[in-house]
């Protein structure tokens, strides 16, 4: 009886020993992975900071202005002048709609052979 308990305990302790070591090694592996990831993040953050700085340089008005100046002639662009600004309030009102009824009447009259101009010309004594 005692012997079988002993054997069981020995086997149990071996299993636990093995599992504890397995756990330890897996944790060490995870820790190494984490360290590698942290290093990679730090590295990429470093690269990102350089890219951001690059982007900031490229975005500066002081960087863009000379480029614009260089291509002014080719792109046919120039600095905006005061006269080129406008506003909706500055637009003239839309002209009144053409009197379509009167136009129709005129065209019908011409189609029937009555030309209102003739009357004016006769009145003026031309022809």
């Amino acid at each position, binding site marked *: 009886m005692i012997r079988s308990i002993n054997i069981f305990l020995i086997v149990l302790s071996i299993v636990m020993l093995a599992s504890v070591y397995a756990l330890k090694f897996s944790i060490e592996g995870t820790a190494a992975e984490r360290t590698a990831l942290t290093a990679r993040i730090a590295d990429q953050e470093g690269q990102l*900071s350089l890219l951001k700085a690059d982007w*900031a*340089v490229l975005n*500066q*008005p002081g960087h863009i202005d000379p480029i614009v100046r260089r291509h002014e002639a080719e792109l046919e662009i120039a600095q905006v002048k005061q006269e080129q600004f406008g506003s909706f309030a500055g637009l003239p009102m839309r002209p009144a709609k053409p009197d379509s009824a009167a136009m129709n009447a005129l065209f019908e009259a011409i189609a029937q052979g009555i030309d209102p101009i003739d009357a004016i010309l006769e009145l003026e004594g031309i022809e």
Partner: protein
Amino acid sequence: MAALAEGHAPTIALDGARKQRGSLTQARIRWMILGVLIGFALVGGRLVQLGMVETDQTIEGQTRDAIQASRPPILDRNGLEMAVDIRVPSLYAEPRRIIDVEEAVQKLRTVLPDLSEEWLRNRLSGDRGFVWVQRELTPAIQDQVMRLGIPGIDFITESKRFYPAMNEAAHILGSTNVDNQGIAGIERHMDSESIALLQELGLARGNALTPVELSVDMRVQHVLHDQLMDAMTRYQAIAAAGVMMDIYTGEIIALASVPDFNPNEPATALVKDTFNRITSGIFEPGSIFKTITIAGALDSGAVRVTDQFDARYGVRFGRYTISDFHGKNRILSLPEVYKYSSNIGTIRIMQAMGKDNFRDFLSRLKFDERVAFELPEMRVPTVPKTLSEVGAATASFGHGLSVSPLHMVTAYAALVNGGNYIAPTLYKRDVAEAETLYERVLSPQTSDVMRYLMRLNALEGSGSQMNRAAQGYRAGGKTGTAEKVVDGRYSSSKVTNFFASAFPLDNPRYAIVVMVDEPKAENPQSGTTAGWNAGTLTGRLIQRVAPMLGVAPDFNEALDRQIVPPALR
């Protein structure tokens, strides 16, 4: 029994088997306890030993955290980066681990030939744990050094400040030293506020810091800087500077002074004459001060805008007579005094107000103290505590006292914003917040008259050159040509020119002061007075920046008529 009888022979006491086993067990237990105690003592002792060890976290007297500490990015008012942190490798050595110093020196010098051989040898020999070799290198150099494979040489990543705008906002930003601590400009101010503390605690690391937003608009800043650089060549000036302020919030929209420096190379800031002329330069303001005098007199009620002043003869003070530069030699109305920049008229206006009232008014506009501003580079203005008769007379047209251009722009802002003094700031501030800081220095009515006078000067007076460039933006201002003192005398050939202005004057939003130091005539047809250089510069500046700031041009003349005070209509 015989044995017993034989009696008293020594008796052999035999312990029983149980007793024997019992004492043996006790001995074993003792040994075990001893063994366990020794074991625990060893473990405990080691723990104590480990606890006593102080791990060396410092690098040449600084904590590792401080070296890797980052600063928050600085953004302009539209979110464009003005200063960012970049991670750069720094080369260090552990001399106690270097095996062959001579070899290390030779190899390192193949990649970094700038290092002195002697210095490097001293640096690498010895028993120290950490020495810097060269800080803030490029990734390419890091690669080359790593390929050399020298033991005891390694890199650490440091934060380095980088200013993408280079020179453009140099005087606003200032610069940082190699340890990423602010040494000038807003960087220095930020350190005094809170960041130094964060860095010390090791909290300021990584990219987590909240960006700092400034009131500066980089587009306007660029145009201003561009125009100042242009003025340096166009007028052969020795220096030029300009500042632009939002009159209602006190926010500085742009501030530049040339010659300047590149904040990425802090050593360039040490070159002579690169100081910030806007905040730490004090100058005799000249005629731009007449605006202040007239505003004070109008506000005191001593003169009205319809009053006339006798400018036929110069004003005599003992042996001295003060006369006019463009003398009209007749009786001038108040707007004419301003328009023709009459010294005599201005003196009469000041005298009507009284010199003590005039001096009090200067104090009210804070001309005798430093402007409350973030930049650490400030100078105290020199304004006499009490003014003599002649001192008050010269002060009324801006001579005999020296103030910074920042004083002038703040005063002009107060003159046109309805009469409220608001201290300038480089941080974002909205109108509601600014209103709590307002100090009333003028009545709104006086402010209205000042708007009219400034616009009048642009339409008919010395600001017409400016107005020609800035057509449609309703800008107006006052020229000031201050003669420099050379060998104790005012020189007519060496002048400092100012143009103080505001726009759009029908509903003003921005005040500007531009300064050009010792300009020469651009061509034989032009002159050296302020209208020709500081004036036209301001005009070109307004013409370019007004659309950016949402000010649309308007050629409607009714706008100019509308600001004429009722008394003059």
